[in-house]
């Protein structure tokens, strides 16, 4: 990533000199770098699949990516497939129906639409489209057949879900694609390769017939350059391990691995030297006490300013040093995990840890940071 890229500039300022560049990323070769911003890493991609271990924030990332892609006047659809209404929560709108609703306006006039794909609705829609069988839907539902086809019959559900996303990618009006890009908030990393590889999934079941042709049509999009499967991770052992496994599974299945999005990255606030000292418990406590007094945090009489209980300077200093040691430990751990991620040799994007959590405003900030790093 070129220095001076906006978006992360605010983080950079805080990066102490001498610290091993924590936000360094492999730079994909791009020739036409727009002034002030890198050209996007995925220009040909129309379907961005976002997966990640549970708890890593993949829904947040999918929503922010949709905003990033829509920035500058483009039209983007973000879909969810697990019936959790996570997108509605993130965009702070009422629960999404099985219909495309505009949920956000992006900077520069872009629009983000959202859709919660329901497999039952998708099946009825599919029957109608291909066999003009909408009325049959009710009868079939009564017999439990819709339930069977969407829940029990292995693979059918996934073909319906991915099929709907594929349809949105391919949809055209007056010869022009309706959406510039489609983002999918997909199942977690542990299931992603199987979920997307619908071809293999239904292979044992349907050797011919409509489900088979539908699966083939889905694979034409998903296994092509039109698609990128991005994985969201935290800088922790389990999510990073799952990301590595996920990359391997996707490659095995011949699915296009996209970028790795590292979420909740701690700012390394201490310099390398201070970090090492903090971990060993060797920070200069007397100097810290003097600084705290100079800054007016503690009174000259040696107690915490404004505190009703008696909190002594020595306690404050020891506590801050201990919190510093925790932070240093955490940052060191994150660096080790970051090395493992680098070894996967994929474009990597980082989103800082936000102590206050993610609201709609923060979503726009994250989108801007992702754009600044070249994801869109």
């Amino acid at each position, binding site marked *: 990533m070129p220095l001076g890229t906006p978006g992360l500039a605010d983080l950079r300022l805080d990066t102490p000199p001498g610290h091993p560049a924590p936000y360094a990323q492999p730079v994909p070769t791009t020739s036409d770098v727009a002034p002030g911003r890198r050209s996007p890493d995925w220009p040909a991609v129309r379907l961005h699949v976002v997966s990640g271990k549970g*708890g890593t924030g993949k829904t947040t990332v999918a929503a922010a990516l949709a905003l990033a892609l829509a920035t500058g006047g483009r039209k983007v659809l973000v879909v969810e497939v697990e019936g959790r209404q996570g997108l509605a929560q993130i965009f702070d709108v009422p629960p999404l129906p099985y219909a495309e609703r505009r949920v956000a306006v992006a900077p520069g006039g872009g629009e983000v639409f959202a859709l919660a794909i329901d497999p039952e609705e998708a099946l009825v829609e599919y029957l109608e489209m291909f066999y003009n069988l909408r009325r049959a839907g009710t009868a079939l539902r009564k017999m439990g057949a819709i339930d069977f086809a969407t829940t029990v019959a*292995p693979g059918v559900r996934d073909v319906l879900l991915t099929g709907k996303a594929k349809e949105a990618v391919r949809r055209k009006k007056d010869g022009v694609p309706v959406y510039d890009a489609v983002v999918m908030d997909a199942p977690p990393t542990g299931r992603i390769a199987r979920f997307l590889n619908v071809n293999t999934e239904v292979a044992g*079941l349907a050797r011919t017939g409509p489900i088979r042709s539908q699966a083939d049509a889905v694979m034409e999009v998903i296994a092509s350059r039109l698609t990128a499967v991005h994985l969201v991770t935290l800088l922790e052992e389990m999510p990073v391990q799952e990301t590595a496994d996920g990359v391997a599974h996707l490659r095995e299945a011949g699915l296009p691995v996209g970028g790795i999005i590292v979420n909740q990255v701690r700012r390394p606030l201490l310099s390398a030297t201070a970090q090492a000292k903090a971990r060993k418990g060797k920070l200069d406590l007397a100097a810290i006490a003097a600084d705290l007094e100079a800054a007016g*945090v503690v009174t000259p009489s040696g107690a915490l300013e404004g505190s009703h209980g008696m909190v002594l300077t020595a306690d404050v200093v020891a506590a*801050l040093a201990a919190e510093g040691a925790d932070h240093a*430990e955490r940052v060191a751990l994150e660096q080790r995990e970051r090395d493992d991620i680098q070894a996967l040799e994929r474009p990597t994007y980082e989103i800082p840890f936000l102590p206050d*959590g993610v609201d709609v405003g923060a979503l726009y900030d994250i989108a801007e940071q992702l754009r600044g790093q070249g994801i869109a």
Partner: protein
Amino acid sequence: MTPPSGIAPRSPHLDIDALLDDRSVKVIVCCGSGGVGKTTTAAALGLRAADRGRDVVVLTIDPARRLAQSLGLTELDNDPRPVAGVSGTGSLSAMMLDMKRTFDEFVESNADPERAAAILANPFYLSLSSSFAGTQEYMAMEKLGQLRARAAAERTWDLIVVDTPPSRSALDFLDAPRRLGSFLDGRFIRILAAPAKAGGRAYLKVLSAGFGMFTSVLSKVIGGQVLVDVQTFVASVDTLFGGFRQRADDTFAMLQAADTAFVVVAAPERDALREASYFVDRLEADSMPLAGLVLNRVQTTSVPDLDAATATSAATRLEGGSRTSVTAALLRIHADRVATLDRQKRLAERFTAAHRDVRVAAVPSLAGDVVDLDGLREVGASMARHP
């Protein structure tokens, strides 16, 4: 140090040791959404119970590699193995669920060899046992049933701690077995199976026009061969199992028994607490015994009186000076920490306001990963710490 329980000051305390020492509790089920430390919690509870003298088996679903290694689970063998290193008179065994193998064994132990072989080779069975969403939940419950029967017969264990599968939502774990059970044992599949039982597809012709339309749509959607596979499968398992639904219902009843205790695991994050909230309501609606909530990854601070705004402005003042200040960095670290804690408190407050009677045990967030038994012991100890 503000104890982590400060996150839910008005909630009653979940006394972990009282739960583990209660000999009338035979099964502890840990549930919650993905990524909240469910498996670690289950393992830590199991180890602590064993250290306190109980004979424990922990059934894990999908442990992290190093956690699995710390429990001696280096390969999937679908059978509990003793874990060395328990102090005192208790014992600990652990196992990792192999979903397909559990299903295979279930078939093999319920059918004669010839029939079992036919089922195991059926394409529909292969899909069902390896990839169907819900099979993992069903098999986790099947395994729990087996462990329970074995514990009762051989007196091997007096406490089973179960981790639950990483489902789409925490509720899947309760609903999937029944859903699968009612499909496999339901009206629809019986209709499908009828032709096979009556001697082949020719039978279809004499059925009503409605049914003809129905199967024709179905074969359009899932393919004719699938129907035949399903029919053969259902016909061969139908008479053997005493009904899948019956088994699922039995499991459900077992989970309602007084010797089961549910521990809902969450992290102080919006999604995790929302899932926990649904789960608590659901357990109550189904009269399932809830022990309480384990809240992992709670932020703590030793100087709660130094708030984020004061710390940040002091840091800014120090940074105005000429030298690089370690103190300024420490103040910013503290400010982030307090801001995180404040956010977690707000989220926890929403949960506790809606569930005033739910007992809570708060566990502070750890700087590193849990990689060995000592790490698990530490987790167990902080879970059991009194406020």
